[in-house]
């Protein structure tokens, strides 16, 4: 979907990070979902390594 296609669509937003950005969008009636974002696997290196090893095997 190109940039010009985007201009013709209704904006539907996924917000990752600061909640206030999502609140502002909702206050304007924009379709938006806020992601309760956390670093993958808590950002802990050991977990991330495990996760990538497991995912490689799949």
């Amino acid at each position, binding site marked *: 979907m190109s940039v010009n296609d985007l201009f013709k669509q209704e904006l539907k937003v996924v917000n990752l990070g600061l909640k206030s950005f999502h609140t502002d969008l909702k206050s304007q009636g924009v379709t938006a979902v806020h992601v309760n974002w*956390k670093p993958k696997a808590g950002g802990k290196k050991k977990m991330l390594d495990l996760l990538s090893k497991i995912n490689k095997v799949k």
Partner: protein
Amino acid sequence: MTMRVMKARTIADDLVDFLANNHGCLARVHSTFHHAVNLLIRQDELITLTNQGEIAPMGCMVDGNDIFKQYLRPGDEVILDMDRIVAANGAFSVYLCEAQVWKSEILADLDPRPLDELEQTTHQLTEWLGQQPALGLLPLLAPLTNQGANILQPDNNIYSRYIANDLKDFTDAMLASDWELALSITDRLLGFGMGSTPSCDDFLAANLLVLSLVERLNPGFYPWVGGFCNTVANKAERSTTLISLNMLRHAGNGKMSRSHQRLVQTCLFGDTGDLKHLANQVLQHGATSGGDFLLGLVCALNWYRNSKMDHSKEGEEAWVESMQSQPVSIL
């Protein structure tokens, strides 16, 4: 944006074993509830995390009041390590190190109650159960415990009405010591009823639990029990929900969640607490799960009492005969 860290308060010993031998593996979320989540491991086995309710086989109780449904969706990945369980999406982790380990198997090395006490206990429990709201399969209490009541009452609900005759056939077969017939009747029971653990499965789980304990209490007297329990579990793979399948497997291995465990222990071995209080704890499970389990329990206790009386009547001969029984065939 920091990960929610929970601490495990209690962990089942079978889960500890699993993690020790399989650490660093991935589980997938099978189902989520407000205060519990089931994780799928291997082909069809479940691990349960919960912060309300109670500890169960392959279970772990954690602190806090979090709503698991907010963190996970079925299909999400969860990393299982030896000392912790971590949601791959980073929503939360559970630290296991300080948890108390709960023995999931009912101890069968205690002294069993003498028969007359067992009869009294069964009678007390049946009477108490008769006073509870007749939900699920409970309308069938009187006919199934041979109190002479008509099997089909007008106030039976649609489920109990439909299954009444099959359940009666099952309990009659058990009382007649025709375990092979009873086993074949389970085809007409498994997967039937309301709930993620259908009513008949709860009923059967109570039976399997008692059977497996009774077999351990009386080695050699019930050699068919192992095969019976395995077969029911195998049948369940095709005929009921995954959650129920896991419950039935555990029951066949003498394991069930703590309140059920304590109640059955009290019935068979005596004095681990107030009978009515423990029965009430079980009754609270689900909408009808507890009641259906209790119905199964009183039926199983009746069977056990009956069979013990048979055995003592027949004496040595019966013992020899059962030792020479056909080896159990696992269908």
